[in-house]
């Protein structure tokens, strides 16, 4: 088995040189392809906007200006980024552990419920302690919500995809019920929950913008999550169980335990995302508290190809689109359904580009395994 020489002086044929270059720069190439895909999706979106009779340049200007063209928009984008990031981390870690969790939406809502209970009804705590307790409550509620699906999977081996999906609807209806009575402040004539106390609110970190401490926390949590999964024994076990349950059990790994930890982490992350959104942005639960973060989180994780940098970038992209599109609608009058179409295009194109990169690296490396 001779070493493949990559430094030979004799000029290689052009095709082999391209292949060699590609082989050594797969990361760069896949990033370029993703950017190209986004550009292409925007181009098609622009054409659709033009067909709708609106100047696409104007629309794009609003998209950019609205999302990071000024201090407020920039802050808003990064604020949106927070729950998206939590939900995509939640999906990604479940995926690595062989568990299909499409229930982040419900887990996020339940996390917000947990945080509101602690944040609104426990008084007289030091702010640091109060914030911490709210976050912990959010994690626990989210984890329990995921745990129900996990319990059904482990002990009744019923399909977690259906379970987590159904639990989303249960959570949405449950929250609706709660804000119609049990946690509605008696004096309020709106259907909302009680507002959390000032001591439970996350501080603003960029003045004259909505950007709150949750942003920093979310970045730290991302680092922690990937440390957990790639650098710790339990993370190793979760991945082993996800990749081959049987081999993991033959090696003495406790499958049930690894699955439970995975469930706590996936549900806890989504729940924490809900707590952050509540404590930093909305302060109370209203109908439609989550703008579909749980579902967008799946797209973010897939787009980010389950790796940390990819997920951060994809979450940022989604946040830009979400905020910028609001601006497009308000400023340029682009109709909302069209905006959804454009967002969908971007997702589809980026995911398709992922497959393209896969194919490409297969050809470059020389075929399927």
């Amino acid at each position, binding site marked *: *088995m001779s070493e493949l020489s990559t430094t030979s002086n004799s000029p290689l044929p052009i095709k082999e040189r391209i292949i060699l270059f590609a*082989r050594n720069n797969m990361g760069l190439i896949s990033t370029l392809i993703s950017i190209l895909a986004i550009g292409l999706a925007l181009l098609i979106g622009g054409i659709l906007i033009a067909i709708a009779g609106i100047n696409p340049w104007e629309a794009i200007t609003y998209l950019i200006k609205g999302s990071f063209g000024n201090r407020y928009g920039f802050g808003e984008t990064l604020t949106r980024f927070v729950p998206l990031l939590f939900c995509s981390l939640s999906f990604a870690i479940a995926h690595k552990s062989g568990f299909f969790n499409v229930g982040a939406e419900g887990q996020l809502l339940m996390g917000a419920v947990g945080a509101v209970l602690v944040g609104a009804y426990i008084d007289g705590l030091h702010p640091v302690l109060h914030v911490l307790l709210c976050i912990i409550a959010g994690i626990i509620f989210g984890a329990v919500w995921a745990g129900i699906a996990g319990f059904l999977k482990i002990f009744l081996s019923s399909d977690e995809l259906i379970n987590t999906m159904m639990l989303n609807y249960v959570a949405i209806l449950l929250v609706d019920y709660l804000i119609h009575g049990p946690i509605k402040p008696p004096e309020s004539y709106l259907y909302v929950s009680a507002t959390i106390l000032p001591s439970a609110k996350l501080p603003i970190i960029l003045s004259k913008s909505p950007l709150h401490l949750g942003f920093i926390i979310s970045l730290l949590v991302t680092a922690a999550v990937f440390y957990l999964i790639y650098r710790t*024994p339990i993370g190793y076990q979760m991945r082993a169980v996800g*990749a081959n349950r049987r*081999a993991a059990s033959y*090696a003495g790994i406790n499958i049930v335990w690894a699955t439970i930890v995975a469930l706590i982490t996936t549900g806890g992350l989504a729940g924490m995302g809900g707590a952050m959104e509540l404590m930093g942005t909305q302060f109370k639960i209203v109908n439609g508290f989550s703008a579909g973060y749980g579902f967008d989180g799946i797209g973010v994780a897939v787009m980010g190809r389950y790796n940390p940098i990819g997920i951060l970038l994809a979450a940022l992209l989604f946040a830009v689109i979400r905020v910028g599109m609001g601006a497009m609608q308000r400023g340029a009058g682009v109709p909302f359904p069209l905006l959804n179409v454009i967002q969908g295009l971007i997702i589809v194109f980026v995911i398709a580009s992922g497959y393209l990169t896969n194919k490409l690296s297969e050809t470059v490396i020389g075929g399927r395994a």
Partner: protein
Amino acid sequence: MMSEEIFLSFRNIRKSFPGVVALDDISLDIYKGQIHALLGENGAGKSTLMNVLYGLYHQDSGEIFLSGEKYEHNTPKNAIRHGVGMIHQHFMLIPNFTVLENIILGQPSPKPPKLEKEYFRNEILKVAKKFGITVDLDLLVEEISVGMQQKIEILKALYKGAELLILDEPTSVLTPQESQELFKMLTELNKKGTTIIFISHKLKEVMQISDNISVLRDGKLIATVKKSETTPHELSRLMVGREIITQYDKAEAKTGEDILILDAITLEDHHNQHRHLLKNVSFKVSQGEIVGIAGVDENGQKELAEIISGLRKPTSGKISMFGKDVTHCTTRQLIEMGMSYIPADRRNQGLVLDFKISENAILETHYQKPFTKGLSLQRKVIDKFANELIQEYDVRTPSINVPVKNLSGGNQQKVIVGREFMKKNHFLLVMQPTWGLDVGAIEYVHQKLLEAREKGVTILLISTDLEEVRKLSDRILVIYEGEIVGEVDSSTDIEEIGLLMAGSHKH
């Protein structure tokens, strides 16, 4: 039968993977109507060459000619159209479909949208009759033996019009009897004009059925010889580049106390309470001896291993290990007590295929020192360990960061063997430890087992390879339908053990 017409020829085929040249300028002719064997060490490039032909990989350079015409655009579909059929080592049948349904899967119906099963049935039976294959098309695949499944794979290829059959290590999953049946069938097909490429590590088999033999080493074609002009000895020298020891000098076993004691282990079938997978199994293995369990596949060996390793609990009975009752211990507890287990099915039980070599090297020990310190896995320590493993056990790979799924079959096995041997162990439970290994590597693993025995390690060897069991064991237990039906010593005549394995005690 020996025509001089070339059916297939490879011209200067080159194929590299990152860091490895898997095929290095291979030129080879396969004559029509012959059985051509490919021999070579683990990782020599045999499977890769066949995968290039079948279109699973593309060569970097070089050409392929089929019946004199240049064959381009190699894809599996195109290969089938050109009469190339491949029997993969891991079968691609769907367990809960019938044989018939499996064969017609993906075939266009003559009258869509109707399936026209009856039409297909007749067509398939015609092909089966022509080649003298008897099958029951209505059985579910999960109900039939592995040998039968292989027959179905072959019939499927023939039905699709294969004139060239490629079999990649077909006998490694078969019992000796099934292998003989396969050879009969292959010879029969060959007489009817089918060209066959046969990959195997077993020289005996190669000498039995092939006309021509090509030997690959490190991606290069070393030689092509006629069967009639060579000997197993010469072949193994060509393959490995040195002489192979096949007979070992074993010192008398210095046995100590009883390490493993099974006491009346019984296991009932989940689905059928009246059927026993294991029936009243009792035996002891003492320190420093190798006890072999011989038997035809599917006679309870798998269940026995699962029970001893704590993966499954017996319905009744008691197990003790190192003087402790371990009937209710978990696998991890047993591993920590010093048990090592090499399971039979490396792809599903022994390895996480998507994990890197380094990650697989620590599958059982990752949480222990020095691999984990405090909260974190110690990447440097792990990498150093994995590098030692691939050096010591001669795993052919460019780096420890390669996912094990990209290793050749034999090299995957070496990763498992290395992992289990490098761990601190007092009791080794090994099942088919040399499955898919080349002669050199088999010798190496056997030596390692004997070395361990010298050091006082207790070994229970479960294998369907009777010669392996005889060569290594101090005592042999024969298992038949979940019962231990006899104990013999390793000098016992092979025929006699064979009879016990076939259940002769019952008659």
